[in-house]
């Protein structure tokens, strides 16, 4: 308080103590409100009537006064409080003035009724939440079997994964794609169709047994990723050609080089 500038002290002193206390109480709480609707609900309690009989006009005035006071005390209000203030000012003027003939859109009464409905609904949900939390709760008031039995020689493995795990996994993959935009980026991928086209053209040169690797296109044997893709594509392509009876394939042993030869017509 000691650091507070002089003029703020003076400003605050202009209010009578009771009002000042009230204003400060609201301001201290402003962080505590969960948005304009929550604040409106709190203000509506001062009317001490059933929410269904609340005076929206009076409420609008209370809200606007609150915003004015906050401004006078240089409290920064979040934008949605100001949006609500603007809307309530509009509503207030509509409620006070007779409707202009030929005006379309909802009437001021309809808008006021809707605001009252929103407040009543929020209040009802809060009461429902309180009633819910006041119920006997499992693990606090009511208990399940403490030692569930799992006796049997037959163990069945169940795999555990929750929806959260699943969504996180997907989010992880897609987030990675943000660095490498999600698209089938083909520059490191040699497709089987491409390989098939190539191999058809090159078949004439495969009169005798030749290593499949020799058929890889230029520039596709440098990086491992490209070599893998090209190898896979060409391998798939020769399988397709073998199926059509155009080439013969042989491999000495697992992982040995794969050799191909044009099938004699």
């Amino acid at each position, binding site marked *: 308080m000691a650091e507070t500038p002089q003029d703020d002290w003076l400003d605050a002193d202009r209010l009578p103590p009771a009002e000042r206390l009230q204003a400060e109480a609201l301001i201290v709480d402003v962080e505590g409100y969960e948005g304009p609707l929550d604040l409106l609900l709190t203000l509506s309690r001062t009317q001490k009537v059933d929410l269904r009989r609340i005076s929206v006009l009076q409420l609008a005035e209370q809200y606007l006064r609150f915003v004015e006071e906050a401004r006078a005390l240089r409290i920064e209000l979040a934008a949605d409080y100001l949006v609500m203030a603007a809307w309530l000012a509009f509503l207030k003027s509509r409620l006070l003035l007779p409707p202009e003939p030929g005006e379309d859109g909802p009437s001021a009464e309809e808008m006021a009724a809707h605001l009252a409905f*929103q407040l009543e609904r929020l209040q009802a949900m809060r009461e429902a939440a309180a009633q819910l939390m006041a119920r006997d709760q499992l693990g606090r008031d009511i208990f399940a079997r403490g030692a569930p039995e799992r006796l049997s020689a037959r163990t069945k493995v169940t795999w555990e994964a929750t929806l959260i795990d699943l969504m996180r996994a997907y989010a992880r993959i897609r987030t990675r794609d943000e660095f490498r935009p999600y698209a089938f980026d083909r520059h490191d991928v040699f497709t089987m169709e491409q390989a098939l086209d190539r191999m058809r053209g090159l078949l004439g040169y495969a009169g005798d047994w030749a290593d499949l690797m020799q058929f890889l296109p230029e520039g596709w044997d440098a990086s491992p990723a490209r070599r893998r893709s090209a190898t896979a594509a060409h391998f798939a392509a020769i399988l397709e050609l073998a199926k059509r009876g155009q080439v013969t394939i042989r491999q000495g042993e697992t992982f040995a080089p794969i050799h191909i030869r044009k099938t004699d017509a």
Partner: protein
Amino acid sequence: MTDSPEPIEKTLFEAPPLGEQERMVEAILFASAEPVTLATLTERMPHGCDPAEALVTLRRRYEGRGVNIVRVGDAWAFRTAADLGHLMHKEAVETRKLSRAAIETLAIIAYHQPVTRAEIEEIRGVAVSRGTIDQLLEMEWIRLGRRRMTPGRPVTFVVTQGFLDHFGLESARDLPGIKELRAAGLLDSRPLPGSSAAQDEEEAQTGQSELFED
């Protein structure tokens, strides 16, 4: 109808006597910490058993006892009687304290389900904070429901059996005060006259791009 085929069929599929079935239901429910559905009971009991009938008598048997049989959705479980909770504080598990926002969000989902995020925000008058939905999903008190068949096909949320189990509810229809709230029209979705269409439109845009992204 002849007499002979009937007895044969009866012998083949003869179910254990009701008293025996009751014991089986008792054993299965006792062994499980989670509620067990009628379907699971039927599946695990010998052919021809009627666990529903056995449950009626078994439930009556445990009325007023230290443990009771409670219904949770279409499942059943043994639970300690609520008035004995004070003896069990040793067993009590420290539950994560829910924020006011989380509690309100949970209540709104329970009373308004299936409900979209935008609807929750409209009722609370503020944005649903990051992580609130996440927390409720993680506790397995809410889950995703059907997408709403409106433009944008927004995701909806509904409460789970775990939620019902935790709060000792047979079904969401048994939520405290829900009939009165419905009668008072407080569970209707009533958009702000005039301005709601615009909001929906905007929401549709957001949802829509998502839908076609994949």
